[in-house]
């Protein structure tokens, strides 16, 4: 059965190595594909997937507010599984084990098992599961079961073996410390000397009243967003789950990447985004009287049903309008009208006035633009720094 522990731990180490490699590649601040398959190392995907959602969730790494991207939990899983290979392999090489050593192995395999249970529960909260993570869960269960069986097969009279529980425990801590130390030593530094900003707004005012109030914190911030853009939804989720969103007095500027209203894109990257944006503006109200709560509800609905709404718009744009009017009766009579179309144009022209890149999401804190990579895996680190800095000086070293 000790061989079973070694085999399960090797499998777990392989899955966690794949996951660690995936995580680490993002530290170059670029966009990458992810391995997302039950076969370790196979099935690299570039688009949205459960693996990407989990990777970008706040549970995939720790100390994100102090280290860019944080320390991946998969790294510690790799350390623990590698340690289990060594720990279960030792009695195999020796040819026998003791009751104490077998008992320790049960406790040691209980750690990844416990973490698997915890992370499975968290995956339900995140609403996505990654196949590589499932591989680690299964390996953990297998290792624990094999360790229990090995312990049960070890008679109480089995001779003692060299070593103590404290030494074995210290060895495990050493594995974790070694990998953590190497990770911190070789990965890119968190602070690239540009205070997490890439340019600034030249015209932050909203004379046409196109902005939508999203959050009511004290630090002024503006998000350029497309209601049907998956990355915008992901940013919204990250801002919420990190708790950092509460500090922001966040206003949204709608910038649908849909050629039916946006002349800056050659095709509808997110079909239906113009109609949904109109619905958000209609719900907020076009006149003096504003209802930001209603606008937020439309936006939340759009985020929750992005794929369905995009598909509906692709098949029949009118059907999307009907869906929105049925779900939000207050937008009826406004949606598709001249006034809301005019308002949406003003929203797009706000981006023109600020010469913004044609992409979403973009986050501006105190009128400074957070770099694109910092709205992703580095959000917690960069936003925490930006909020703490509180300065309003021109950005240093950032891209214009």
């Amino acid at each position, binding site marked *: 059965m000790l061989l079973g522990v070694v085999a399960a731990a090797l499998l777990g*180490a392989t899955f966690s*190595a794949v996951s*660690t*490699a995936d995580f*680490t*590649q*993002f*530290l*170059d*601040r*670029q966009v990458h594909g992810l391995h997302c398959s039950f076969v370790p190392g196979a099935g690299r995907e570039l688009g949205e997937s459960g693996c990407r959602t989990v990777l970008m969730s706040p549970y995939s790494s720790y100390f994100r507010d102090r280290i860019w991207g944080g320390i991946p939990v998969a*790294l510690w899983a*790799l*350390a623990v599984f*590698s*340690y289990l*290979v*060594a720990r279960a*392999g*030792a009695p195999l*090489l*020796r*040819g026998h084990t003791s009751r104490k050593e077998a008992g320790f192995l049960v406790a040691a395999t209980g750690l990844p098992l416990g973490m698997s249970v915890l992370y499975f529960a968290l995956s339900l909260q995140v609403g996505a599961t990654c196949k590589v993570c499932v591989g680690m869960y299964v390996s953990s269960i297998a290792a624990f079961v094999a360790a229990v069986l090995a312990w049960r097969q070890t008679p109480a009279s089995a001779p003692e073996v*060299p070593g103590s529980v404290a030494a074995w425990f210290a*060895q495990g801590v*050493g*594995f974790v410390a*070694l*990998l953590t130390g*190497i*990770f911190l*030593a*070789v*990965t*890119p530094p968190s602070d*690239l000397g540009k205070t997490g900003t890439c340019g600034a707004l030249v015209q932050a005012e909203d*004379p*046409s009243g196109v902005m939508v109030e999203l959050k009511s914190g004290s630090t002024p911030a503006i998000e350029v967003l497309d209601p049907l853009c998956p990355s915008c939804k992901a940013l919204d989720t990250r801002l919420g789950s990190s708790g950092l969103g509460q500090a922001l007095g966040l206003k949204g500027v709608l910038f649908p990447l849909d050629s039916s*209203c946006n*002349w*800056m894109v050659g095709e509808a990257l997110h079909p239906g985004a113009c109609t949904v944006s109109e619905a958000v503006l209609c719900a907020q109200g076009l006149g003096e009287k504003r209802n930001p709560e209603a606008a937020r509800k439309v936006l939340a609905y759009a985020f929750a049903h992005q794929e369905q709404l995009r598909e509906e718009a692709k098949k029949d744009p009118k059907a999307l309008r009907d869906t929105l009017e049925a779900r939000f009766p207050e937008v009826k009579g406004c949606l598709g*009208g*001249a*006034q809301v*179309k*005019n308002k949406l*144009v*003003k929203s*797009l*022209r706000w*981006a*023109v006035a*600020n*010469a*913004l*890149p*044609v*992409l979403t999401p973009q986050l501006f804190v105190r009128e400074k633009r957070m770099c694109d990579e910092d709205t992703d895996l580095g959000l917690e680190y960069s936003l925490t720094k930006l909020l703490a800095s509180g300065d309003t000086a021109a950005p240093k070293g950032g*891209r214009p």
Partner: protein
Amino acid sequence: MTPSQKSLALALATALIPAGLVGAWGASAKARLDENRDAPQDVAVAAVSNDAYCTPQLKAVVRRVASACGLVQAEGGRGCQPTDAKKVASLSGGDFNALFRPLAKRAHIVQFDPDTAELDEGAKKLVETAWSDQRGASFFFVVARASPEGSADHNTRLSRDRAQAVLTHLQEKFKDPELERQVGLLWLGEDFAQLDEEFCAWNRSREACTPAELNRSAFMAWIDCAI
């Protein structure tokens, strides 16, 4: 090799192999980051439209109208001055109209009753539709005309009132502060660049399309030209 030495070798192997991998992955990410840090970003920047139909002649006309209406000066209010349409265009009437042919899908023509400058309901709706289709355009062009009945002076005033009626309706309906800097008016009266039957196929507020009816009108379009 004793069992203890074997165990130690195994422990070292199981520690050093993942450590080496992590080191290699991290170093690789750092190298890529250093490589890409100063690389120029290939991302489009939000800008107003400047379509292919923006010929130098069209831009010249738009610029002159915009100047005459006070749209291009940073200071001072708007107010289109009476300007000789022929001087604005510096073109023959036919060539002037030809400038707008590429706008067939973008332009709208509101028609008026004889000797009036009042917008009917259909015309108001069309004005609103035209205005809401701004997209990336910077100037909204209103070119008003009159049919040849009556004196030339009267028709010049009538066409000016028609252009003004479009602007007034936009101001009342949209209450848009930017409107003042975007709407250019040009009134042609009866003697320059009359619309021919080709324009009957364009988006109009009425069915009727005799030459007289077609020219009791205001032609409106957002112009996708950066001038």
